[in-house]
């Protein structure tokens, strides 16, 4: 997750405890801390969903699926996650609101100290449920909208889904819940991006997360409907431009890019072109601490049957099951050579990623997309849209140069 608004509008020389004159040691320490951080855990509480979205990674269905973790098992899982030190639990699905014990689980997560947040399509969030989720201790609701009304409804397989989601957003905001948009960018909906932001800003939303498509679940069927590298670059540039335009007008919106760490490299290039060398350096250092693609490290997934996955999109492979042993034991078990390899992936990346000068901030992007498209776990991410002349050459700002022009 890369905060465009932070990098392009907030980050100044004093910001975020990062000063570059004495930075090298502290940056290293921060990177170390970052690596030791426990993962944010996505929990697909159910496979069932009331919509049928084209790109659903969970291959959700309208039927109840076998083997869902029960309420008691869910609480035991939350205890495990709390013991292990997972900072955040993202309730997801399917559609998590079809679980009638969602509030109970949210309250339990809050009680044991794992920050409960929610990812939903919004169409089941009535006033009552928004209020009960807020009362249960929910900290954030991310609501998916994937285009202006007509396009969104088509994508989601239900007429009225857009209005339903907006009503859900409204109900959350009225209940005092922090609420943001989730938008998965594809070829079909890329043109709607600014329109949706404008529309939802009027409703009162101020946080917008743009997801690149990952190639899991039904997503694999629409690899062809994904953006081309040129289109992707344009879309990301528009997110950057839009963020700065809002800021310049005095309207603060938070914008984030998720799921493709070539964005990190691009943001440095964008900052250099539009904001100068000093800002580009700040952006780079910030992203270096951020650490690149988090698969198998800072993000984890537990599906409705308790299978643990490397990310929520990577459902075709499971590390183990929380019904067999605690989450932390599964996650720490590097006798699994895949886990070890992913955590040391820098040494294994091939092709253009092997000597990309941005590999520190990107780490080769999505391993799942490389695997799906190239059949090779360590091939470059097929979604990389950086030009060859941008990724070649020495590491940008190498050596912790003491004379940053910013100071």
């Amino acid at each position: 997750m890369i905060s465009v608004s932070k990098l392009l509008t907030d980050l100044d020389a004093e910001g975020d405890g990062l000063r570059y004159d004495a930075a090298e040691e502290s940056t290293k320490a921060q990177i170390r801390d970052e690596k030791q951080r426990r993962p944010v855990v996505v929990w697909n509480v159910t496979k069932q969903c009331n919509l049928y979205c084209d790109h659903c990674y969970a291959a959700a269905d309208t039927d109840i699926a076998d083997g869902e973790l029960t309420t008691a098992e869910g609480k035991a899982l939350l205890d495990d996650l709390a013991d292990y030190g997972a900072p955040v639990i993202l309730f997801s699905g399917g559609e998590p609101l079809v679980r009638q014990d969602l509030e109970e689980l949210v309250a339990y997560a809050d009680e044991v100290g794992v920050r409960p947040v929610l990812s939903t399509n919004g169409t089941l969030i009535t006033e009552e449920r928004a209020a009960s989720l807020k009362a249960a201790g929910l900290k954030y609701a991310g609501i998916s909208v994937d285009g202006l009304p007509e396009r969104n409804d088509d994508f989601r397989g239900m007429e009225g889904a857009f209005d339903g989601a907006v009503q859900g957003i409204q109900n959350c905001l009225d209940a005092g819940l922090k609420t943001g948009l989730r938008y998965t960018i594809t070829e079909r909906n890329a043109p709607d991006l600014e329109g949706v932001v404008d529309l939802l800003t009027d409703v009162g939303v101020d946080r917008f997360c743009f997801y690149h498509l990952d190639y899991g679940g039904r997503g694999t069927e629409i690899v062809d409907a994904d953006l081309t590298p040129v289109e992707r670059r344009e879309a990301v540039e528009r997110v950057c431009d839009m963020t700065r335009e809002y800021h310049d007008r005095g309207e603060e919106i938070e914008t984030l890019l998720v799921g493709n760490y070539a964005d990190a490299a691009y943001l440095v290039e964008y900052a250099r072109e539009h904001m100068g060398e000093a800002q580009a350096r700040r952006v780079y250092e910030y992203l270096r601490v951020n650490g690149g693609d988090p698969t198998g490290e800072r993000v984890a997934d537990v599906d409705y049957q308790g299978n643990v996955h490397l990310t929520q999109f990577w459902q075709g492979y499971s590390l183990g099951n929380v019904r067999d042993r605690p989450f932390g034991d599964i996650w720490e078990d590097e006798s699994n050579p895949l886990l070890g390899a992913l955590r040391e992936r820098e040494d294994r990346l091939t092709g253009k990623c092997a000597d990309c000068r941005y590999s520190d901030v990107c780490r080769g992007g999505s391993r799942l997309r490389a695997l799906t498209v190239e059949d090779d776990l360590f091939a470059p991410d097929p979604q990389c849209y950086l030009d060859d002349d941008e990724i070649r050459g020495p590491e940008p700002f190498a050596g912790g140069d003491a004379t940053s022009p910013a100071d």
Partner: protein
Amino acid sequence: MGELDHEVDAPRGATSREWEVFCREASADPLTHVGSVSAPSADIAREQATRLFAHAAEALWLCPADETVRVQDESLALDPDSDGADATMDEQAMHDETLRGEAE
């Protein structure tokens, strides 16, 4: 050691059959359980597992999860008394609730 009197028999496959994967990195090493892959057939399971582990493994074994008996000490179970009760809305309730916020 434990009594191994708890059987974990909950299903493991989400969209197709699930295959437990075991890998040996070198002939002197133990065969290690390294998770599972979802695949409709043994051939596809083999392909999937090979893509994930060929870089490290000298040998791979695959076994259908639904043919694997998993018994363990009860203390390890997430919730040994769980009766599999479902907390999810039935389909009718789900459809009735959808867009209900809109009707106001």
